[in-house]
């Protein structure tokens, strides 16, 4: 019984990783590629580590397997966020079929400043700061 569960988990994890690799190869731009790899690869690692914990069935090994799971769950979104942010700032092209880019009208790539989108004429004027050069 445990053999069947183990085999299913290992195969499902491997297939999710293949899915992530297919996504990174076939999808059109950086953000969609990240959307494929981050989630599918993390799920693949989680399933395989569950299979490892089932296979050894010892407390020490299961603790390490769950440590890997928690580590992946905590770091995969952070890494994806950081790379996506850097990719947008570097100016990677979005797919031609992109429907909406909410950051485009509010972000100024030259000054690296982001507007909130709530400015009126009055408060959009730039206030002089105390450390400005005269």
């Amino acid at each position: 019984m445990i053999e069947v569960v183990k085999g299913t988990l290992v195969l499902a994890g491997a297939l999710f990783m293949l899915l992530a690799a297919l996504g990174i190869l076939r999808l059109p731009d950086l953000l969609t590629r990240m959307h494929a790899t981050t989630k599918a690869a993390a799920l693949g690692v989680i399933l395989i580590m569950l299979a490892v914990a089932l296979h050894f069935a010892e407390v020490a090994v299961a603790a390490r397997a769950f440590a890997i799971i928690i580590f992946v769950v905590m770091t995969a979104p952070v890494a994806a966020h950081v790379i996506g942010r850097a990719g947008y700032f570097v100016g990677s092209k979005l797919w031609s079929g992109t429907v909406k880019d909410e950051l485009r009208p509010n972000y100024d790539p030259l000054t690296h400043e982001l507007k909130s989108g709530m400015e009126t004429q009055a408060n959009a004027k730039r206030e002089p700061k105390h450390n400005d050069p005269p």
Partner: protein
Amino acid sequence: MDTVILLSQVVMALALILAFVRVVRGPSLPDRVVALELFASIVVGLVGVYAIKMDVSSFLDAAIVIALMGFLAAIGFARFLERGGPRDD
């Protein structure tokens, strides 16, 4: 069980090849960084499957280290991209 292990190893090797194609072809540096991060994840999975196959639990320590290195490499590359520096991609 042996056939299942072998099959999953073949599937993950195929995934590594596909990710490597993206590393070679990737039009910009961020694409390559994403592909290299996927590399790290797939290798963690391969090490886990290998630990099951060989019945040696110590391989999990290597998996932990590889996951850590992948994360730190992604952070470092992103910082390099944002802070600038000479790029040729």
